[in-house]
């Protein structure tokens, strides 16, 4: 096909009413338009218009914050798809995971979600590692580092709550080992130091049915109530908190003067 034809075809597409209604701006080829496109596009307006060259140097940022964010989006999308197939009850949880492997089309949904989650834990560590090694937590970015630490914690908790959902041996024992720790919380766990202090008229207030672990699990050992709690934490509560903090995190990156650099 002669070149002129091709360009006229793409011109025709780009000049159609549909295209123009979606993309409010023609392809930006000069400096002015490249600035305008970032300012006027909903998805691009997260970015500044111009940026120091080192801010996008892969050898400086490793792109790890961006990769973590991307993985969070992957987890959100695959997670919603998984929710269509999964019921968090003792009767169905394991069965539904089995059918995801054996029956559902697109049989790699669960794999995408699980490996994406592992990868996200790794990339969030690497992101923190790079932020530390470049000293980017120093003023004026102290508070964004603090938000980052909460995000790190939430990422681990997301992964931890999700670990229970397949309801196989791996799942409940890992969560049992993990949540047993709460039993020993000082003052608030029934096997924790200082537990005996909460004692009213000779009756212990902190027992295995009222301590920190019980609050986490909703019962004395990992069971259906726990499954429900972890499901809601995993699918709703923690993702919302992460999304909220991410908005602040990104906003702060820009308000603190963009990616850090030598003075």
């Amino acid at each position, binding site marked *: 096909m002669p070149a002129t034809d091709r360009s006229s075809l793409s011109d025709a597409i780009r000049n159609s009413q549909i295209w123009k209604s979606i993309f409010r701006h023609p392809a930006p080829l000069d400096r002015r338009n490249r600035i305008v496109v970032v300012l006027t596009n909903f998805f691009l307006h997260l970015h500044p218009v111009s940026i120091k060259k080192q801010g996008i140097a892969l050898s400086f940022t490793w792109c790890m914050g961006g990769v973590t964010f991307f993985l969070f989006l992957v987890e959100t999308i695959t997670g919603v798809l998984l929710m269509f197939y999964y019921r968090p009850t003792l009767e169905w949880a394991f069965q539904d995971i089995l059918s995801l492997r054996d029956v559902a089309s697109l049989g790699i949904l669960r794999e995408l979600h699980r490996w994406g989650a592992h990868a996200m834990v790794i990339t969030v560590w690497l992101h923190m590692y790079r932020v530390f090694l470049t000293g980017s937590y120093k*003023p004026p970015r102290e508070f964004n580092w603090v938000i980052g630490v909460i995000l790190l914690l939430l990422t681990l908790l997301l992964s931890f709550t999700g670990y229970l959902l397949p309801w196989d*041996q791996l799942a409940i024992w890992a969560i049992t080992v993990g949540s047993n720790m709460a039993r020993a919380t000082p003052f608030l766990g029934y096997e924790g130091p200082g537990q005996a202090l909460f004692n009213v008229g000779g009756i212990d207030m902190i027992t295995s049915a009222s301590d920190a672990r019980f609050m986490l699990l909703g019962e004395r050992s990992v069971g259906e109530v726990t499954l429900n709690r972890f499901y809601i934490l995993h699918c709703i509560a923690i993702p919302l908190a992460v999304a909220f903090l991410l908005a602040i995190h990104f906003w702060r990156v820009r308000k603190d003067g963009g990616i850090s650099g030598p003075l």
Partner: protein
Amino acid sequence: MDPNLLTHWQNISGFLGFYYIALALMNGIAAFVVWRRSHATVGPVLLLLLSLVYVGVLAPLAFSADATWMPRMPSWFTQLTNEILGGSWGAVIYTVGSIVLLGGLFVARKFFVRPDVAWILLNASLLALGLSFSDPNFYAIAAKPDNVPIVGLIFLLGFFTWLATSRAVENDARALEGRPPLEKENDEKILVWPDLVYTELICMILLTALLLFWAIGLDAPLEEPASSVKTPNPSKAPWYFLGLQEMLVYFDPWMAGVVLPSLIVVGLMAIPYLDFNPKGNGYYTIEDRKFSYLMYQFGFLVLWITLIVLGTFLRGPNWNIFAVYEYWDPHKVEALNNIDLSNMFWEQLMGVSLPKAPNEAGFFTQLGFILYREWLGIAVTLLYFIMLPPLMAATVFRGFFVKMGFMRFMVMSNLILFMALLPIKMVLRWTVNLKYIIAIPEYFLNL
């Protein structure tokens, strides 16, 4: 020839063959890149030769799964590793070994960041990994689906630590010559469209491809349905919490599971407010901020990562240590004869039995006896937390104290002392079999 071994080789020969081909490709590409960049000949030729060895020798041998020719770790090596790591000194040798290794890499960092040296190390570790896969015990652990990310993590951390260190070494050298850091040269402003937007797009496409490959190639694990009566042995927390689970060997759950993790979070959040050094903001450097650098690396690489690796790859049934080539035998016994500091003081030193309140004694008498019994441990602990910070402020950390002020210095020194508790307890356990410094099981207060 052990038939099980042969079956294992047949099962993995396809995977291993492609693994060596991938290594060949990696070195071939490196040869091309080096040649394009420098037009040198020695390096590229050596890389090509290496590549040829992978594709011409190791890959076909791996594909053959032949009883005599299968590439594998020499048996003297696997046996020696099992002897050293699987013995009763395994945890000690592993931990001390990791510290010595990381310390050596740090001290000789100028040597190890050289691209040729780093490349040789990368090849050596990838080759060792490939050869080890031929061992069924190693394969059973390293290729367990949930452990694969950790193998990845080790290599990623190696790569990024190398990258960061080589830039830091270069920046530090530039600083000596009075030149600004590398990052300063990238100061010019560029437009987000197209440069950043396209980088992001390419990253996203590559990552999607990678995730798809990973998901197709490796099935997510699913074991038997949950049963609250069948306890697996070992029962492991998810891999990213294995460092905490490893602390359970040395501490009771209230420390290992609650106090220390909370302090990790608090301590991380405190870093920007404790690090008063204005230098080293926005560029890679070691010399400009040696203290904070070493503190962080000790906490992250030594206490967090190596403990995760230990918990994942070396901890087997009954939480015993098993070397990487060792069979996970649930009947392996390890003598446990740890004793408390109070036992050491009263029984071994004084030659009397532990002080014990009469049975009918009231609450305060009981408490008094407990405090009396544990007085040494309590005194040591109080001295550690109360006496050391002022001592530190007056001696080695004098400069810090002056710059930080009282509050900030106290917070920092106490965080450091808490972090140091773990290595201290490890050493005491290994050397004198110490179980608890303070042992008050009556109130679940064991330290």
